[in-house]
Structure formats: C-alpha cells, structure tokens
C-alpha cells in the first residue's frame, strides 16, 4: 500500500498547509513521561516528597560518611544515654549510637520498604490484571489463590521462608511481599473490572494490540490509582511490619541497624526511655510522608484530567 502522504490529505485541508513540513521538528513531541515529569514537578508537595525520598536515599548511600559512630559499636559504659551531648539521639541498651543506627537503618528501610512493596506490586499487578482482564475461570482461580494467601498466617510463611533461606533481609522482603500482593491484586482487579469494558480497550484490540499491550498501556494506567495510593503507604507499613517480624524473631538479625529492630527494642522502654522508639518512628513517618507525597504526585501527574 502506498504511504499516506501530504497529498492524500482531505480535499479541504491540504491546501492550507497549516504546518509546513520544515517547521514540523519545531513541535517538540513531548513524550508521555516528559509530560508526567513536568506535571509532577509542578506539584509542590510532590517535590517535597521527592526531596524527602532523595534525602533518604542519600542517607542510605552515604551512611558511613554521615554517621558519627559505628552503628554496631557497643559501649556498655554508656548505655541508655539520653539524647544530647555526645550522642545526639542518645544510645540504646547496648550503648550504640541511635543517630548512627538511624542513618544506617535508612539502607535497610529503603531495601525492605521498596523491595517488598515493589515485589508485592509486581506480583499483585500481574495477577490482579490477569484476573480482572480475563475474568471468568482465571479470575476465580487467581482470586481464590489470593484468598489462600490472605488467610495464610504471615508468621508461618515467614518461618518457612527463613528455614529455606536463613535469616536476613531477603527473606523478610519475600515474606512481606508474598503476603501483601493479594491486597494489590484485589484493588487492581476491582478497578479493572470497570475499565476493561471501555471502548478504548476495544479500539486497541481492533488495532490488533495484544493482550499484554492492552493491559499494560490501556488498562493498568487507568486503574492503577488505588494501587499507587496503597503502595506509597505500604512502604512505611512494610518497615513497621518488619518490626513485628523482628519482635517475633523472624525478622532481620537484632544487631542489624534497622528501624524495625530499633522499634522492637524500644518497645519495652515505652514510658521510660521514649526516645528509643520516637526517633525511629519519626524516621518511618518521614519516609512514609515522602513516599505518600511522591505517590500522590505521581498519581496526579499520571491523570491528565486533573490539570
């Protein structure tokens, strides 16, 4: 077939030559991502969130330079020192510097928070999308699988995973992900149920678009909002959940400088040495705040109608 060229243009329109060919490159074809980035950056809170997340990543990357002490160094002569003085945020029951532990903790927080949610979203989005898009038997089967995971106790799962993998960050991430994807997939599936009937999905199919493309380009972008809101929040709750796992003895090893560990150790000092849990909590809150702002900003940026 001949290419469609200028001369093919409609009888009424061709003559106008509204845009001369030479001028065309002048119209910058803004990519979708460029557009999103622009909208994102125009959102003040989103930028604040980005800064927080940036600081977090910075702390994680340069912890050895930033931390005043070795986070593992025990000073039994100086345990439970109140904040101030040599130890800005005090020391814990083993005389370790809290500030240093919080800074180092950012590393694992970032890994656990992001990796577990990323993994959960990955599994959840794939399964939710398949269930929502194909419906019928596939939906039933996948959602029932999700039910099993919902009902299956995290603790047992975590123990089994630890038996297989040993204690550490990876099993924690996997445990958290394996047991939180069902939420993601449920959320996504329910949005997809309404989106999949949209005409633009039909239109894409009519173009010959494959299932993957339809799901990835058309369905997911239009139904991901709820998942994004959930994910942004869950980054924080994953860190808190790690604290619970630590407490139950299936989290990362207790000497590791990690916020969840710090919380679980600070828990018994509630009302006595509150700074032990307050500072790690604040670190988590800030992280959550950062991710929520970024998540919201991203969600808004992804929705062209909101401008």
């Amino acid at each position, binding site marked *: 077939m001949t290419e469609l060229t200028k001369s093919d243009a*409609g*009888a*009424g*329109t061709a*003559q*106008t030559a*509204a845009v001369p060919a030479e001028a065309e490159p002048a119209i910058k074809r803004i990519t979708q991502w460029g557009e999103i980035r*622009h*909208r994102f950056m125009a959102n003040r809170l989103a930028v604040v969130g980005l800064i927080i997340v940036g600081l977090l990543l910075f702390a994680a990357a340069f912890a050895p330079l930033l931390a005043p002490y070795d986070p593992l160094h025990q000073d039994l002569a100086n345990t439970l020192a109140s904040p101030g003085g040599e130890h800005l945020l005090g020391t814990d029951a083993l005389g370790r510097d809290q500030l240093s532990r919080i800074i180092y903790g950012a590393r694992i927080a970032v890994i656990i928070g992001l990796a577990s949610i990323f993994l959960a979203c990955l599994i959840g989005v794939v399964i939710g999308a398949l269930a929502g898009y194909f419906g019928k038997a596939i939906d039933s089967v996948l959602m029932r699988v999700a039910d099993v995971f919902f009902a299956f106790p995290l603790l047992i799962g975590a123990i089994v995973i630890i038996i297989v993998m040993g204690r550490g960050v990876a099993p924690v991430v996997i445990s958290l992900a394996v047991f939180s994807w069902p939420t993601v997939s449920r959320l996504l599936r329910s949005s997809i149920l309404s989106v999949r009937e949209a005409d633009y999905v039909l239109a894409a199919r009519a173009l010959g678009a494959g299932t993957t493309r339809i799901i990835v380009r058309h369905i997911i972008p239009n139904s991901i909002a709820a998942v994004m809101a959930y994910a942004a929040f869950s980054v924080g709750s994953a860190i808190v959940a790690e604290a619970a796992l630590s407490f139950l003895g299936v989290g990362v090893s207790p000497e590791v400088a990690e916020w969840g560990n710090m919380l679980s150790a600070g828990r018994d000092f509630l009302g006595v040495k509150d700074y032990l849990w307050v500072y790690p909590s604040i670190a988590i809150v800030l992280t959550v705040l950062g991710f929520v702002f970024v998540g919201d900003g991203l969600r808004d940026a992804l929705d062209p109608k909101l*401008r």
Partner: protein
Amino acid sequence: MTTSHVTADVPAQRGTDGETPVLEVRDLHVEFKTREGIVKAVNGVNYSVKAGETLAVLGESGSGKSVTAQAIMGILDSPPGRVAKGEILFKGQDILQLPEAERRKLRGPKMAMIFQDALSALNPVFSVGNQLGEMFRVHQGMSKKDAKAKAIELMDRVKIPAARSRVGDYPHQFSGGMRQRIMIAMALALEPDLIIADEPTTALDVTVQAQVMDLLAELQAEYHMGLILITHDLGVVADVADKIAVMYAGRIVEQAPVHELYKRPAHPYTRGLLDSIPRLDQKGQELYAIKGLPPNLLKPPTGCAFSPRCPKAQDICRTELPPLVPVSEQDGTELVGRVSACHFWKEQIHG
C-alpha cells in the same frame, strides 16, 4: 398502534417582541488555564432567548457552544475554566453576581440543561427514577413516594413505554434514545423557564431523533419555555428553530431568524456551513468543505478569526476584528433580528 400522518405544522414565530428575554448573554468571555497557556474558549458571546422561543446555536465543534452553555448553567470546570468577563442576565438579573446558593436555586426550577452524552451524564449507580425524583425531593421537598410517582409521570410524559416498571432501572439498561428522553424529562421536571439542550439528538438515529425533537418542541410550546438548542445538525435546526446564532472561534459571527439565514447568509462562514450539508435528495461528487483548520484558541488569529479560511478575506480582515453589526436590506431597511460580524456582510448577503 402505528400512525402514519402527514404533518404540516410549521411552528409559528413564538417569540413575542418587546418582552424582556428569559436569558440574555452579554459579551461573555470564558478562559481555560492550560499548561500551554490560556485557552480563550469564548470571546464575547452575545445572544438572547425569549420565552417560548427557540434559539439554535450552530457552529463548528470546538467553537465554544458547550462552554457558553456551561457558563450559563454555572457548571464550568473551574479551575481551570473561569468566566473572564461579561454578564448573563436571567430575566434581567445578572446571575454571575448571585451568590452560589442563590444560583443553585435557579438550576432546576428556572433553567435546566440537557447534555450531549446522556450515558455519561446520568449517574450510573442510581436508578433513573431516583435521579428524576431527586428534582422534586430537593427542590420541592416531596416525599420519596410522591417523587417516584412524579418520576413515573415524567417518564410517561416523554413516552417511555412501561414507565411504571422501568422506573427502577439503571441508565445502562436503556437505549440511547430513551436515555436522552430521560435527560429531557429531568430537565423538564420543574417546568423551567429556560432549557439548554446541548446536542440532544446527536447520538440518536433519525426516527428517534424525530420523536425526541417533536417531544421537545411540543413540551416547549406547552410550557412556553425559552430553548437554546445547540446542534450542528442543520436539518434539525431548520425544523425547530426560530432564530439561529452561528458561532465561530468563541464568538457569534451571525444571528438571524431561521428562514432568513438559510436563504441569505450574511457571513462567509455560514455560507460555507450551509454548502457543506449533504442533501438527501442529491448525491454530489464532492461536498463543499470549508478549507483549513479551525483556529487554535490559544493564539487566535488577529482580526477576524475566520480570515485564514475565508475565500473572500481581504487585508482588513486579517488586522481588524469585525464588530457584530445589524444587517440591513440593500435599501437600508433593517432586517429585524439579523446581525453579522463580517467586514463584508453587504457583499455576502447581497451577492
């Protein structure tokens, strides 16, 4: 059940001169803030409707017909949209100055709107009976039961078969024509003085369109309402309108009584529009089409917005904005109700 009848009802000129119009729009400007800049969607629209009169608003898509209507109803997306300038007089009172609470009370009992896309304009999760009855419950404090009875009555009124049993159905369960009739019923519910119908029949096929338009005209006559009919179906316009306003690029470029306009357009754009109509009774080789693209409202052309596409454009057209001026016969006698915004309207109308 079936009637075949020959209709010859020419709608009489219903407008009565001298009386204050139900609605008068004066120099309305509406802008949208977008990333690329400010879109001047409406740039000084003037029109008016009297009780019992039908004003058809014609114009290219994107020319600001819907936005004007939304501005009148006070349902602009704002932000980003806002009324930058102008007055909207409802029975002589500028409703733009009214507090929101007062303005709300006008919507429904005094003015109502029928939307272009009935499916998305009806809330998918409430039954049509509920949505119809809501008008009575909210504005007249009617009980649920009475409101439902009223809803059934309305559905009957707009000729929805088996209204009683369908009152609990949801919008998606109705055909397009029925949905549109439900929209009409909703608009008519409180017998407002003014109805704005934004392309009420675009999505309908001819036999249903004929039914719906007949219905609308009939009800309008009965309640003596002012009707603003936004459409680009010149066939429909010819059938029901009393006068026509033609919009281009956010402005009224011509206004005239219906007969006059078809006979002697006073603006080249109107001319082009009329020539573009495919006719049932003739199969031309190629339709006439107005050349060029509609203007970019971000940076409207200087002078007459139509000038880049106008076959008769002169230098002045590209520099000077033509005012909307009364049109007169060659001998100078004024043509009542006719205005045009063309520097060369004389040439256009008189050959």
